[in-house]
């Protein structure tokens, strides 16, 4: 590949990847009256900030729902994943080699295959339509990936270290508390970023399990707004920016860990 071809490809690809971003920004800053299909690409004549105030008023409660849901579910599933990973990496129990793949498969199933009983179950235990039902669901279906990432991460901790702690009289929880946990920070960063992004961006569970608008996460609210016909496009575009911002910030500031989680998501640790 010659230099020219190389740079031409990179340039064209950059245009392809950034065009939508440009369009979102200029549309979000246009006055509703100035938005027309034939002038899509022109920059706004007057920068109009009110779209963001409007989008913020409409979406602030949904963003709050998303934050509460995402943070709670992420922390719970990371904690459980860490304990599970510790058990699977350091304590062999009979049948572990059967249990582990069965657990992992849960990560790949299409959730449509469990959605009907899940919907009924959440309703029957009285969590239908609430954020807590959604939190429970995200914690449970997050377990395979968090367990996998922690297991692969803890497998790198030398067995001698664990042995030494045991010689010093540390038991099961002592080893976790004094040896494994202090070494866990990078593992937690990867898992938390992965779960945060996944849960923030999730749609299928949110749209089926949360019916009341008061509890909707941002993805559902955005899909409904953009699906409406009479809406001016400045609002969905400003909303899309708001909905994208948290995960984009995570990606920009913690990109290295984001990519590590991404690659761990394809099973290899």
């Amino acid at each position, binding site marked *: 590949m010659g230099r020219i071809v190389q740079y031409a*490809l990179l340039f064209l690809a950059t245009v392809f990847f950034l065009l939508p971003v440009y369009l979102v920004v200029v549309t979000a800053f246009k006055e509703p009256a100035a938005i027309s299909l034939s002038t899509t690409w022109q920059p706004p004549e007057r920068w109009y900030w009110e779209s963001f105030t409007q989008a913020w008023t409409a979406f602030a409660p949904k963003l709050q729902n998303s934050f509460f849901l995402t943070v709670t579910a992420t922390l719970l599933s990371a904690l459980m994943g860490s304990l599970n990973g510790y058990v699977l990496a350091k304590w062999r129990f009979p049948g572990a080699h059967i249990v582990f793949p069965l657990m992992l*498969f849960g990560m790949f199933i299409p959730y449509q295959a469990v959605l009907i009983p899940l919907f009924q179950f959440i309703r029957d235990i009285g969590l239908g339509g609430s954020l807590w039902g959604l939190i429970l669901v995200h914690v449970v279906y997050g377990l395979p990936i968090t367990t996998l990432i922690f297991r692969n991460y803890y497998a790198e901790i030398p067995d001698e270290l664990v042995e030494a702690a045991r010689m010093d009289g540390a038991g099961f929880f002592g080893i976790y508390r004094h040896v494994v946990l202090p070494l866990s920070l990078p593992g937690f960063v990867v898992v938390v970023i992965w779960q945060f992004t996944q849960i923030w961006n999730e749609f299928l569970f949110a749209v089926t399990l949360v019916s009341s608008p008061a509890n909707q996460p941002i993805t559902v609210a*955005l899909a409904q707004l953009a699906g409406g016909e009479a809406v001016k496009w400045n609002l969905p575009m400003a909303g899309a920016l708001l909905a994208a911002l948290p995960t984009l910030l995570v990606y920009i500031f913690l990109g290295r860990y984001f990519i590590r989680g991404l690659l761990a998501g394809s099973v290899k640790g």
Partner: protein
Amino acid sequence: MTRFFRKKDNFYGFLVILPSLVLLGVFVYGFILQTFLTSLTDWGRDPAQALSANPQIRFIGFENYRELFTGFVDARFRQDLANLFFFTVFFLIGCLGLGLALAIALDRGPRGEGFFRTVFLFPMALSFIVTGTIWRWMLQPEGGVNQLPTLVGLPKGDFAWLTSREQVWRFSWNDLPFFTALVVGLVLAFVAVSAFCGGQGRRGVVAAISAALVLLWGFTLGRSLQPLPYDEYHGFNLALIGIILAAVWQMSGYTMALYLAGLRGIPEELREAARVDGASEWQLYRYVIFPLLAPITLSAMIILGHISLKIFDLVFAMAGPDNAPTDVPALLMYITTFRANQIAKGAAIGIILLVMVALVIVPYLYRQLRSEVRR
């Protein structure tokens, strides 16, 4: 039991992992079983019963599945399968091709590599809903992408991105058994040839005999096997092109990251050795680098393939749930179950999705975990 509980620590380990195992057992395997049992009933067939507190549900066996594949009313499901097939093929080609090209271009050390990498990967951080909302606006029939040519003075495009009703490559559903046999037969023949070349004679013979049998069946009985009493045509809906475009935009950064990691793992000495032997740049890639990337391609195909089989939110956000030309099975399951209240039929679609995903994922998991044990 006694052996297991002899050590206190083993007991604690068991205790710690037990809640997760129970939860996953119920939420994954229990619920799959329940969905399967539901799919064998007529729940929702009578609208009056669908939403009642104590619906009367009858067992009807595999009737829902039979209707989906060969029944008169469920033509939409069959078109969805065709959509899914074409979507998957082009999505894979797009992501693998663009990802590989970008990875090679980045691997050859351009200036500003970090910037390019950041740009190509950022869509991965977005929700399919956000991507869908943005691309829905990009692909408005009279605006967005269709207006792009006017920026350089050309007439505007007039492609009906998400609303087109045009179909190409139409085929009759009745030819499906034949085509399936043809594809399976050719794949088996390929396996046979590569087994012979790799010196695995017995495996080759088995594969060759299976290939011959499948092809023979396809050309004789397969031809006369007609699932439907009439011809029903399905094809590639051009409205899907916009969705494929958005999906490639979102996911090709992932293949780029995979390929780039792979390329960076190839030792420089190997490239040097090939160059010393007089290999041209093209030959270097053709005979040294691409073969080393083959396992990555396979992994990427499996991961992207299972994402594609499950695609739901992107279509929902781009074309809405009720746009038939861009419908896919995952979306149809949602509509059938939660809008039309045809619960048993929805369950059947869910199980069909599961089987398709399992066919892709189970061999993959098996291979990955086996190689891990060996390591």
